[in-house]
């Protein structure tokens, strides 16, 4: 028993981290116990041997890849903050313009309505002549976005695939090819973060599509990462997808399900059932 306690101090002693009193006790014990002395000698050889193992260095590309991801994230974050910052003064500006007396409010509303009707007629005429060119241009931009998204999603580097997922948000029209590629990413991408981002993108862009919802339910069973499973469950609850209930119940009953996932699936079942 004493020997066990003393031996547990050996690594700290070899690392030079023992306080003076404990170290003295250990040394006193080693003076009287040959077995512990032998243990200390052997472990000392191993401990010093580790010092001679020089450690491998990561490639410079690792830092470059990290900086690429960080910059992409920072750009997105700053963009989001800019949008938020613009919203605040706009609200207070319009609130300041709005008259406080009800009579003026009615008059102001009527004037706005009249301006809207007249303006609508004028712009409808103007648009009729410009529309085909604008529509063509918009279609070209949309095609370009689709092309960039699809090619980025097939890149080798996870950060490029992440950019591809982010790019899919900019598409104004839901595109079936991008939808399929994002679903493929959710099911088969080797990187958990890319899969997580793809789940978010699908939720934002294609969540209302019933076929996509079915594919998301199927995806839960094939996921190995509990984090992605949690994200999928949350998304199905957010979409209020009651058809997901049987799959979620199976997840709750499955012995192999991760504890946290089982718990979240249970809560999801409760929530979906309560909204019936």
């Amino acid at each position, binding site marked *: 028993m004493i020997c066990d306690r003393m031996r547990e101090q050996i690594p700290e002693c070899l690392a030079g981290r023992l306080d003076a009193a404990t170290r003295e006790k250990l040394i006193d014990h080693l003076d009287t116990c040959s077995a512990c002395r032998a243990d200390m000698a052997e472990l000392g050889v191993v401990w010093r041997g580790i010092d001679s193992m020089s450690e491998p260095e990561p490639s410079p590309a690792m*830092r470059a890849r990290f900086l690429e991801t960080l910059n992409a994230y920072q750009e997105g974050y700053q963009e989001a903050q800019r949008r938020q910052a613009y919203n605040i003064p706009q609200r207070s500006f319009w609130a300041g313009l709005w008259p406080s007396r009800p009579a003026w409010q009615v008059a102001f509303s009527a004037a706005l309505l009249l301006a809207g009707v007249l303006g609508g007629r004028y712009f409808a005429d103007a648009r009729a002549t410009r529309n085909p060119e604008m529509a063509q241009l918009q279609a070209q931009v949309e095609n370009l976005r689709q092309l960039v998204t699809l090619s980025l999603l097939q890149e080798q580097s996870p950060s490029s695939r992440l950019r591809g997922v982010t790019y899919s948000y900019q598409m104004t029209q839901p595109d079936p090819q991008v939808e399929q590629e994002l679903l493929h990413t959710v099911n088969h991408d080797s990187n958990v973060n890319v899969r997580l981002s793809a789940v978010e993108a699908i939720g934002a862009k294609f969540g209302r599509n019933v076929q996509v919802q079915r594919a998301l339910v199927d995806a839960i069973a094939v996921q190995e990462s509990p984090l992605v499973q949690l994200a999928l469950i949350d998304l199905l609850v957010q979409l209020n997808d009651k058809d997901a209930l049987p799959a979620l119940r199976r997840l709750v009953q499955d012995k192999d399900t991760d504890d946290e996932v089982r718990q979240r699936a249970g809560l999801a079942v409760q929530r979906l059932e309560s909204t019936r």
Partner: protein
Amino acid sequence: MGDEEIMKDVRAGNVGRLELLFDRHSRPLFRYFMHLTGNRAVSEDLVQEVFFRILKYRHTYQADTTFRAWLYQIGRNVCMDHAGRRKGEVALPENAGEFSSAEMPPDRQYQNKEETALLHRALAAMPREKREVLVMSRFLDLKYDEIASILKCEVGTVKVRVYRALRDLGDRFFALGGERAS
């Protein structure tokens, strides 16, 4: 400036400051993964993943934990996710030569190279849990209270586990070398 102060800045939205934490911690983290996976490319990918999760979940950082302990908690989760995807694969070092030293006389260098290779084989053959706790204590120089926080156990438990891991490494090393220290 301490890691915790920088991480508080990152949490508050100054995400560019994470570059500083990456420069301080990415190498030891890479080595931690190298010892657990034995694969350079995978280890680099896992480092990327850890720092991405830090960005994504930065609001969950609590200042009462040291940044290092939090970093390796995330690192452990990332590694377990990876291990879950690759069940059955045996982690072995890609190249024992990477761990040798060149600043010694030729005969001592040879002996040292052999011992180093044996130590590396012994370490790679250890059960994952023991290898992990030893890597944290001996290679990353983490304090026992930090290891306890990462492994979510008592400091006393860490003490016992580090000793047992070192003993296990010693047994394997001497068995491989066919000799015992006198």
